[in-house]
């Protein structure tokens, strides 16, 4: 119990004094996770929507695979990305291992199926509602996907936030591909793992509270920006 109080105090101290290391790793956490979120959303939102409106032979199998990929073990993803980006790997020449870019790649792989699957489920309902109208207006597939994404954006926000939550709290993959290098690839989760390993539970808890606060802050900010509560009940 003492350690929890000490953690809260440590978190308070770190935030009030705007600790340099804390600011740096917090910003890096945000940079990596938000970049991964943007890239994954660009891939997953149209794909999930396309999956909701198209009928093709292996559609059920594709959806089942996508749902299964939601539970991808991050450590395995990290290992595969590590092998791909290592010196002897096919993309070793790019020199991306142990950089924030490698961490972003790993996070994109982890959260894209999650966002695509939530998108597919949300868009399936909206497509059932819009189907006759969009067919009647002779819309192209691209126009259908864009219309559904725009009109279903509030439902999609949930998917994006779930993806962000998974990305910001992820440690296994980014530890492997990022290496937790001070001033380069250290982020909140890997710093917590490091401090825990060193036995500095107060600092680890402090960083943990900062991480939770950060996740909540981003969620609130996105909700406020998209005005979900004021205009959400269509």
């Amino acid at each position, binding site marked *: 119990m003492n350690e929890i109080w000490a953690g809260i105090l440590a978190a308070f101290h770190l935030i009030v004094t705007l600790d340099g290391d804390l600011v740096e790793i917090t910003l890096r956490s945000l940079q990596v996770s938000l970049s991964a979120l943007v890239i994954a959303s660009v891939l997953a939102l149209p794909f999930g929507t396309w999956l909701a409106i198209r009928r093709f032979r292996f559609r059920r199998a594709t959806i089942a695979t996508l749902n299964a990929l939601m539970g991808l073990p991050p450590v395995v993803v990290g290992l595969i990305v590590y092998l791909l980006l290592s010196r002897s790997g096919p993309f070793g020449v790019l020199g991306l291992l142990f950089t924030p870019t490698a961490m972003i790649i790993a996070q994109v792989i982890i959260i894209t199926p999650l966002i695509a699957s939530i998108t597919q489920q949300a868009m399936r309902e909206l497509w059932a*509602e*819009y189907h*006759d*109208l969009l*067919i*009647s*207006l*002779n*819309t192209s597939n691209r*126009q259908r996907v864009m*219309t559904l994404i725009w*009109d*279903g954006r509030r439902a999609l926000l949930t998917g994006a936030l779930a993806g962000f939550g998974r990305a910001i709290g992820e440690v296994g993959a980014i530890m492997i591909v990022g290496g937790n290098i001070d001033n380069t690839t250290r982020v909140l989760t890997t710093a917590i793992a490091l401090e825990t390993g060193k036995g500095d539970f107060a600092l680890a808890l402090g960083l943990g509270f900062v991480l939770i606060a950060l996740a909540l802050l981003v969620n609130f900010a996105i909700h406020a920006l998209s005005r979900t509560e004021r*205009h959400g009940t*269509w």
Partner: protein
Amino acid sequence: MVKLAPIASLNDVSVKRRGKTILGPITHSLESGGFTIVLGPNGAGKTTLLNVLHGVERLSSGTVTWTSRDHTAHQEQAFVFQKPIMLRRTVRQNLAYPLELLACKKHETELKVVEWAHRLGLMSVLDHPAPRLSGGEKQKLALARALIRKPKVLFLDEPCANLDGRSTREIETVLREVSAAGTSVIMTTHNLGQARRLASDIVFLLNGQIHETDLAQDIFNAPKSPEAKAFFKGDIVE
């Protein structure tokens, strides 16, 4: 009413679902420039016929030929559904949507949106969310959204079902205007009074077949078949 040319020709068209024939086989031409009302009891195939004419129904056999080229025919048609489908946007954005699909200029779009909102009495709700409108307002919006592209053919599937008298009258007034302006209107209804008020031609469907078709005044005054006679008298026809 001046007849111009056929809108579409159905050649031995039939629609089957799970082995059951819903419509056809039908061979028939629908002429442009009129106000055609498709009448018939429940399950006669009225909605399916409209969908076939609009080109959104999969045919089990036969062909549909439109006077316009196939790829432009669909662009020249509009469809109003019995249950209006509202995009989760404002009334203004719903009206603008068909024009945005055609990449119309913003200024032109805005002018047309205001024009049609005015014609259908939707100016006071222009910036309201469309899904929150009343049933009558939704159907008026659906009609305005269908007409904003100035279609040559307008299909309506029981547009006034479940509407009050005032909304029905407002919609009928607009339909008469667009028909007089040259748009071919093809509409299904259960309401014989409405058919008498609006129709120039009647297509009477029974069991998926065109049982009788004629000018409205002729068919109402002297229906040829006993089934049509019974239907126009208000009897139950199977």
